[in-house]
């Protein structure tokens, strides 16, 4: 599997630790016991993406989906585990290889206004990276940026403008153009359409699908919006509090979710077809990743939880071809 996958993650974990501050350290001298706080953003995730695939990564806030995306894009270093690009461990690469690999994986962010430098013109935003990395000469950047802007559906005459002179949808396109400028093979899209209006969102989603065909791209598409993920993805990964709870081909997952959390999530998505619905919901809040519940992280909210769930953490195991789920119900029950 790892030889043919474009990106593969093995046992990836990410922990953020807040050290004890000065006041805490002083208090510790006087006998207080302040410990550094650790957030388990992502714990022990295995995921392989094959070329040309669109993997949808779904979860609620604080589930670690963005952290995982950032590790794939090379913005964060994983605390544990290894990430391989085209079968090669990223940490064992030579400098040139590592640079090639990180150029091939690009990220598109949620809010284009905070990820585009407001004091740079579009031409500079889009051409900065390819010029720096020697993909194009500085002299030819005008033509280069024009072709890329056309690709994302923007008129090249806009290239001398600043980001604030564009609408939300156009800004999203600039963000995409910047990512495409270094000829990536793999795009990590972190909530890239979440801030857009429905009619504009449809335009950008169509653009993503078009680019996938034209440029043979692979996507890791991170979103909390199940409708978007269902529309775009071949395979869906559902995360809860730092762990993957289920992964399955999109069609199968939406037909018959296996994990109780996936079921709850799908049940609670409002759709056009459900009218005058009696909204009923799973109880409780998403726990803090600072101290996740023991055993299965979902057990305090799970309608099917049993004694075993609060003690033993279920592992992700295959339940049918291409499907994995982490629930004791698939493995001897919850009793």
């Amino acid at each position, binding site marked *: 599997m790892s030889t043919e996958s474009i990106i593969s993650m093995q046992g990836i974990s990410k922990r953020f630790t807040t050290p004890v501050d000065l006041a805490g350290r002083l208090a510790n001298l006087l006998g207080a016991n302040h410990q550094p706080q650790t957030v388990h953003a992502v714990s022990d995730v295995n995921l392989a993406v094959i070329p040309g695939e669109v993997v949808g990564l779904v979860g*609620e*806030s604080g589930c670690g989906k963005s952290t995982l995306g950032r590790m794939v894009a090379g913005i964060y270093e994983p605390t544990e585990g290894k990430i391989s690009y085209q079968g090669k461990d990223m940490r064992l690469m030579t400098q040139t290889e590592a640079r090639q690999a990180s150029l091939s994986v690009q990220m598109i962010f949620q809010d284009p206004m905070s990820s585009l430098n407001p004091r740079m013109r579009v031409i500079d935003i889009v051409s900065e990276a390819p010029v720096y990395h020697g993909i194009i000469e500085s002299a030819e950047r005008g033509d280069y940026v024009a072709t890329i802007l056309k690709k994302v559906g923007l008129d090249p005459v806009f290239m001398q403008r600043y980001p604030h002179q564009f*609408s*939300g*949808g156009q800004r999203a396109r600039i963000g995409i153009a910047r990512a495409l400028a270094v000829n990536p093979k793999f795009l990590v899209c972190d909530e890239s359409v979440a801030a857009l*209006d*429905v*009619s*504009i*969102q*449809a*335009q950008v*989603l*169509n653009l993503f*699908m*078009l680019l996938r065909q034209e440029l043979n791209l692979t996507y890791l598409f991170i979103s*909390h*919006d*199940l*409708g*978007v993920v*269902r*529309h*775009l*993805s071949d395979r869906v990964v559902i995360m809860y509090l730092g762990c993957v709870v289920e992964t399955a081909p*999109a*069609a199968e997952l939406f037909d018959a979710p296996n994990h109780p959390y996936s079921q*709850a*999530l799908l049940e*609670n*998505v*409002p*759709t*056009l*077809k*459900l*009218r*005058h*619905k*009696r*909204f*009923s*919901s*799973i109880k409780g*809040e*998403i726990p803090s990743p600072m101290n996740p519940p023991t055993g299965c992280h979902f057990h305090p909210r799970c309608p099917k939880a049993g004694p075993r769930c609060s003690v033993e953490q279920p592992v992700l195991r295959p339940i049918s071809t291409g499907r994995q789920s982490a629930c004791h119900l698939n493995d001897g029950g919850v009793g």
Partner: protein
Amino acid sequence: MGNVLEVSNLATYFETRAGTVKAVDGVSFAVGRGEVLGLVGESGSGKSVTGCAIMGLVDPPGRIVSGSIKLGGKELVGLDDQGMRAIRGKEISMIFQDPMMTLNPVLRIDTQMIEAIDAHEKTSKKAALARAQQALEKVGIPAAADRLKAYPHQFSGGMRQRVAIAIALLNNPSLIIADEPTTALDVTIQSQILAKMQELCADSGTALIWITHDLTVVAGLAHRVAVMYAGRLVETGFVDDVLDHPLHPYTRGLLRSLPSEGIPGQPLEQIPGMTPSLGRLPPGCAFAPRCRNATEICHRSSPEGTVFPNQRLARCHHPFDSVAQPVGLTER
């Protein structure tokens, strides 16, 4: 009529240096007791300004230019500050998208809730506290008595929104205006809040205006829906009618561009172009430049509201449904 709220021909303009921005332009609708009206539109469509105008919260340079807002038969347009203050929070409450904007971060929840009761009636502190606790229990906050002593930052996002709802409910208003209150929340939490609102409105007969950009939420929650585009209502009607057989091309475009409704992997039907700037609207129908069915008349003159059977209204020269023949023109 048993309507809690009747808005007719409401127009709210903002005078800016670039010219007059017609944020709300000739909007009419009514909400009955216990009814949920979904007010749907994209950003800049004027849906929030409509909500604020009803609450009397439009500040200069904005002003209500014309029209009437009647709450239980009483005219709100032109009411002085004192009169409006007596109504705000008592007869009409508003819930905003970000509860941190509604809640004062440096005051405890109990202080804020007692303040809301005190503003409208004289009660003992003890009685007010008891009512505050009841309200928190009603919206499903566990250990309400203890939580009253907490500060807003000690609550999670979903719980904070529940507190905001509890405050809105304190004085048993006849109308609640909710402006995108679940947009920032996670799916499972949104569903909890929707369930609560549904239950509370059904129990108390409070009318609810739910302002949102999300048609799927409206489908599950509302009885009737009103779609806004560029400051005007383009279509109103019962949820089933509007969502199953939209009359206006904009409504249809919105419905078809929802990814959850498309065939996975197939291109979505998209509305070309973008929402026009309210300061520079085209002379005819505001949607005409983006509309596939637009003809010469659409670019020339703005369509009137046409009434269709089953209390439906659409503002279009070429409405879709051939079955529903228009029954007449409204006065405007």
